[in-house]
């Protein structure tokens, strides 16, 4: 099968959806003049005219206009260059996108088909306001859906699904994934939300890894083979909906689990997952299994490379957590 980069996979998804459905439109900063913050959309304006358009530097207008446009007949894809900037339009995302359908009681078939694409991720030394991976605040907002692909194949299939979803979808793209290459078929396909993927089978410890953490987990999994430790790496792919069944299945097999996330640890997604696993087991009358979590240290993300490295998760930190649950 042909190999393409995640950048190309994302662009193909957007292009195909623009072709398929006239109500799909995309806007954001420098979308037209640069293809957006990370050049994903380069060339789309040539093909689709005003349907792929530069906005002013104005995140509340970008996110808020998506709400108004989705309510009135379009299916907007909008780009917020860096997920750190989502807090600039926090009201539009957390109070409007997340709540509107529920608050409207679903009347009139009310829906808000919006995709908000956001770059996330650190490891490239661009400082505290350009390096976050803020997942927990979005998962804490019922009404949003959340996708975070880790391969070009998943990126394309999930983004196409996101565009067709009638709910607001937060779509996260990791900065270190844009260039990553992988097999992507020429034929059209969709990937359903809420289906985790076992990225590596193993017997001893389940590693639930989110986003770029999958890459780190796979790396350390290979290394730990030498120590005779076999890791099973589960990629949830979407956090809302979340495939808890797949996670529990893997835990049933391995009897141990660690959760790995690039976001700040305190009140992060792994804490929620630990609570859910604990609750599931308890409700089933089973004893808890050994669990541990790996996340970013509870500080802003520092700029200097050695400091950033110290703060963010690493294969070594994952290995340490594995050791912890193996004891």
């Amino acid at each position, binding site marked *: 099968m042909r190999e393409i980069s995640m950048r190309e996979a994302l662009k193909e998804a957007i292009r195909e959806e623009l072709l398929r459905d006239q109500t799909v439109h995309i806007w954001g900063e420098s979308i037209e003049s640069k293809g957006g913050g990370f050049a994903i959309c380069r060339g789309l304006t040539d093909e689709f005219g005003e349907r792929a358009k530069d906005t002013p530097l104005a995140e509340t*207008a970008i996110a808020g206009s998506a709400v108004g446009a989705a*309510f009135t007949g*379009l299916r907007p894809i909008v780009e917020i260059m860096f997920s750190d900037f989502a807090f600039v339009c926090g009201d*539009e995302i957390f*109070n409007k996108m997340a709540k509107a359908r*529920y608050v409207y*009681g679903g009347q009139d078939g009310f829906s808000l088909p919006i995709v908000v694409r956001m770059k996330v991720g650190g490891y490239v030394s661009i400082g505290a306001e350009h390096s976050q991976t803020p997942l927990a605040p979005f998962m804490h907002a019922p009404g949003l859906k959340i996708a975070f692909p880790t391969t070009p194949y998943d990126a394309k299939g999930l983004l196409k699904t996101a565009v067709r979803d009638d709910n607001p979808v937060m779509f996260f793209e990791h900065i270190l994934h844009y260039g990553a290459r992988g097999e992507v078929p020429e034929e059209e396909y969709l990937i359903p939300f809420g289906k985790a993927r076992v990225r590596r089978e193993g017997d001893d410890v389940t590693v639930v890894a989110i986003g770029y953490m999958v890459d780190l987990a796979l790396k350390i999994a290979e290394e730990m083979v030498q120590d005779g430790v076999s890791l099973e790496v589960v990629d949830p792919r979407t956090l809302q909906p979340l495939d808890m069944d797949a996670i529990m299945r893997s835990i049933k097999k391995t009897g141990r689990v660690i959760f790995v996330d690039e976001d700040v640890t305190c009140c992060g997604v792994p804490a929620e997952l630990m609570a859910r696993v604990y609750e599931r087991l308890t409700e089933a009358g089973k004893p808890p299994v050994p669990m541990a979590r790996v996340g970013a240290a509870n500080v802003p993300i520092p700029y200097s490379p050695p400091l950033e490295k110290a703060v963010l998760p690493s294969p070594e930190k994952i290995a340490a957590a594995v050791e912890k649950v193996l004891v």
Partner: protein
Amino acid sequence: MKFTKEDKILLYRNMVRGRKYDEELVELFAKVKVPGMWHSGIGQEAVGAGAATFLRKDDWLEPTHRGYTFGLAKGVDGKRWLAEHLGRATGFAKGKGGHYVAPKGSGVLPFGGTIGSAFPISAGAGISAKRLGKGQVVVCLFGDGAAQRGTLHESMNLAAVWQLPVVWVCENNLYAVTAHLSQSMAVKDIADLAHGYNMPGVIIDGQDVLAVAEAVMEAVERARAGEGPSLIECKTYRYRNHGEGGAFPTSYRTKEEEEEWKKRDPIVLFRQCLLDEGDATAEELDAIDKELVQEVLEASRWAQESPWPEVGQAFTDLYAD
């Protein structure tokens, strides 16, 4: 736009209907245990009626939190709106939303509890209107307080640079909760803001419903013709306090100011105008008043007698499938 006799009677009806619903809500808040908040729009009916009455059914209207007039004039069923406000199962959102919820079919846009969030939502509806090419227009109502939010700047600029068919209509009643405009804005007239977006900005007597309707419809026709957004500032006044039931002080404005404004009640003024111009007789107008009092009483009884939502409703409608 030239207004026929029927148009004018419609404007009158829409103002009076808004007033009667409003009076009923004030009374409900005083006498009955009612959930939520009520921001009375009594005194401001000319703006809502003038802005909404002559819009197309498929035009969009972005509401404010004050009064029902604009929504009723846009075609929202008042009885179900009221039921929603009372948290009943018969409300548009089965009680989940409260009164900021109108059916999509009425052309009323989503309203948020955060003042100023109306601006980008309206710009977005303007994007749809422009791209879908059916000649729809968006009218965004907003208060003088809302005009202080940054969302105004981002949205008016977007609408202007993309030439979106949005008419921004400011209901300037001089106060935001208790803060006088002079404490909160550096300009005296909100219309001055239009300059920064290279769009027309006009000041209108917000107590004169015909003046409002004329200005709005002129801007609507401009927008419909693809000539972009405009800003219309309507000077008006609310008779009651910011909200019912809350512990609002009264010291922030003078009795004289209140009395001065009440001399120019929009309904009284327009009634006189209709009589003077021979568009209606006193008996005809009295009959309308009576009919609407009756309508509102029945709506209120119906809403109050409506059942509460089933508890299970709390857990549905979060996601569309």
